[in-house]
């Protein structure tokens, strides 16, 4: 088993962050390597915040916002969806697997879902790290850069 | 009619001035330096029309220059109408070519904006559009009537040398179906005032709309000041009819023609039949001075069409 990947989760204060809190209160287990950055809304998650996380050593970035239609700021979560899409393109250009960034919608009441998403995402990133370790010279997203 | 009143003396001009119904056609230069094709196409058109348009890098695809192909066609006994587009040359090049064309015996020139190069085989090229087709018409008129270049200099070798200006019968295109519709007639009027002697129209399928356009033309009295040659292109197949309807800007093919093409046993024959009917109909519209038969890459069919439409033999006008 390879070591725990570094995961940054940009979480909206009104939903996913509360869900994370709830997960803790409910004694739900989720990986300790998931480090949460609280945002007032995922609409605050600018593209370069995500890229910067990778530059600073993150293996994966999770952006967790409200469900469509439930954004406290009307459509900040929908903007986040678009930005994550664009971020994936930029990561491909830089030779990084776009699967390393993911947008999820988690409501404030869904503590168990937060824990589950964290586990699944961590597992996915762990596998990507493993694949990369096995074939270090092959750019994961090769062929997609053009 | 005395020759001295003519502007160019071309056969096309003489036929039109004499009040006879004119027939012109089209010859597309080869996409190579091949001369034989021109000879073959010319043989099909000889004696069938009064003059033949020689296209200028039509649809922005490189072909033999219209002047060179026109001279070759002339050697085969045709009278060329050289097309000049504004897309590929600036005012220096075009005026130089007009002098050269005239010196080589060319007497008719048709001025066009030109299809955008995006559609051709050099979509990455730079276009020119130094002037538009109406300005080009006016440049030719000033060269002919005022014997000056666009800059105002006289067309002579030196101050003491004689003026030797190109005497050209000036043509332009007219689109009775373009948008904005009311502007189509305005544009014809502008071409007339700029100096066009004749226009050839876009091919006509929608006879009702063309009649409306001709009414507007007659209301303005334009038909008395410019010769209007109505364009006809025989449909070869249902696919062609649908393509013309759907993909050619400003061209409407009415449903009843589509129906006829659809139900025809021999669509090619039906298309020619339609063309003949159209020519006969167009001939009776007041203000239409002639027919321009555009049989795209089907020069062979022109003689038959003209024959069936009762346009042959062509008159000889001195």
């Amino acid at each position, binding site marked *: 088993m390879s070591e725990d990947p570094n995961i940054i989760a940009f979480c909206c204060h009104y939903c996913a962050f509360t869900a994370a809190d709830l997960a803790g209160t409910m004694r739900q287990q989720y990986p300790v390597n998931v480090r949460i950055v609280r945002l007032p809304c995922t609409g605050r998650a600018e593209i370069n915040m995500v890229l910067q996380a990778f530059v600073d050593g993150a293996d994966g970035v999770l952006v967790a916002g409200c469900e469509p239609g439930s954004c406290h700021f009307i459509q900040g979560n929908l903007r986040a969806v678009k930005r994550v899409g664009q971020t994936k393109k930029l990561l491909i250009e830089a030779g990084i697997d776009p699967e390393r960034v993911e947008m999820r919608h988690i409501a404030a009441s869904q503590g168990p879902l937060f824990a589950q998403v964290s586990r699944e995402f961590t597992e996915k990133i762990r596998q990507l790290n493993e694949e990369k370790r096995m074939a270090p010279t092959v750019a994961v997203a090769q062929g997609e850069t053009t | 009619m005395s020759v001295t009143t003519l502007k160019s003396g071309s056969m096309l001009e003489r036929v039109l001035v004499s009040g006879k119904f004119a027939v012109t056609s089209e010859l597309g230069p080869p996409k190579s330096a091949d001369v034989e094709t021109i000879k073959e196409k010319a043989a099909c058109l000889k004696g069938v029309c009064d003059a033949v348009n020689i296209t200028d890098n039509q649809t922005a695809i490189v072909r033999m220059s219209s002047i060179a192909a026109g001279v070759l066609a002339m050697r085969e006994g045709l009278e060329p109408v050289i097309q000049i587009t504004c897309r590929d040359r600036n005012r220096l090049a075009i005026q130089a070519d007009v002098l050269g064309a005239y010196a080589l015996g060319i007497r008719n020139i048709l001025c066009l904006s030109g*299809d955008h190069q995006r559609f051709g085989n050099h979509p990455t090229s730079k276009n020119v559009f130094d002037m538009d087709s109406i300005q080009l018409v006016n440049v030719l008129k000033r060269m002919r009537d005022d014997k000056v270049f666009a800059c105002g200099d006289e067309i002579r070798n030196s101050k003491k040398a004689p003026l030797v200006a190109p005497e050209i019968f000036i043509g332009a295109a007219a689109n009775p179906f373009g948008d904005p519709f009311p502007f189509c007639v305005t544009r014809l009027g502008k071409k007339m005032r700029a100096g066009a002697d004749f226009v050839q129209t876009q091919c006509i399928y929608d006879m009702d709309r063309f009649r409306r356009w001709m009414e507007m033309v007659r209301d303005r009295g334009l038909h008395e000041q410019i010769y209007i040659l109505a364009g006809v292109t025989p449909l070869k197949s249902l696919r062609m009819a649908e393509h013309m309807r759907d993909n050619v800007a400003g061209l409407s093919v009415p449903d009843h023609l589509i129906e006829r093409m659809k139900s025809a046993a021999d669509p090619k024959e039906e298309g020619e039949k339609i063309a003949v009917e159209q020519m006969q109909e167009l001939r009776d519209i007041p203000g239409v001075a002639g027919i321009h038969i555009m049989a795209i890459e089907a020069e062979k069919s022109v003689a038959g069409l003209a024959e069936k439409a009762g346009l042959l033999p062509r008159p000889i006008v001195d």
Partner: protein
Amino acid sequence: MIVAERKPFDEIFANAGKHHKVLLLGCGTCVTVCMAGGQKETGVLASQLRLASREKGVDLEVTEHTITRQCDAEFFDDTTSRLVEESDAVISMGCGVGVQFCSDRYPNKTVYPALNTEFFGATLEQGVWTERCAGCGQCIVDKFGGICPVARCSKSLLNGPCGGSADGRCEINPDVDCAWQKIYDHMETLGRVDELEEIQPLKDWSHNRDGGPRTVRKEDVRL
């Protein structure tokens, strides 16, 4: 404003990879407004370059810096000059003007463009910019209902539409408006359609770039 678009990443990365230390220089004016080369976009490109160089094992150090305008000498302050001097090369996020101005200013440094400069345009809506002026040097839009046929007609026709105008669209692309349809409609609204009967003479292109590179001098403000 001048509207630009970022070049493909591979092209920028290939240039950056020729050096060990590059300065990514953003511009705070036009290209900030069209979201191509402002501070934010500089940050994004810097991150991408850092990630790509790490990923591909290229030894590259990227510094970011954005100045108010790359087309004005006064904004190239001491900090900027120091950062330039400390770098092996500069990647300018300015328009073509900025790239050249920067290159002139630091003759011992290679300056690479990070953007393709497109046109003089306006913001149609957030994220959409469109060409409005061709900088021909002799504005005549008043004759055409405030719509420029030089910049907005695909063939720069001054006397009316070509045969390719259909349903208000240009023949080159159904997404492009026919400038002449717009001119006609606007002149109709203004009750000035009859003015379009006037034959526009040959345009004097000598004020355009065809007359050679242009310079404007306003004597009363020169020092």
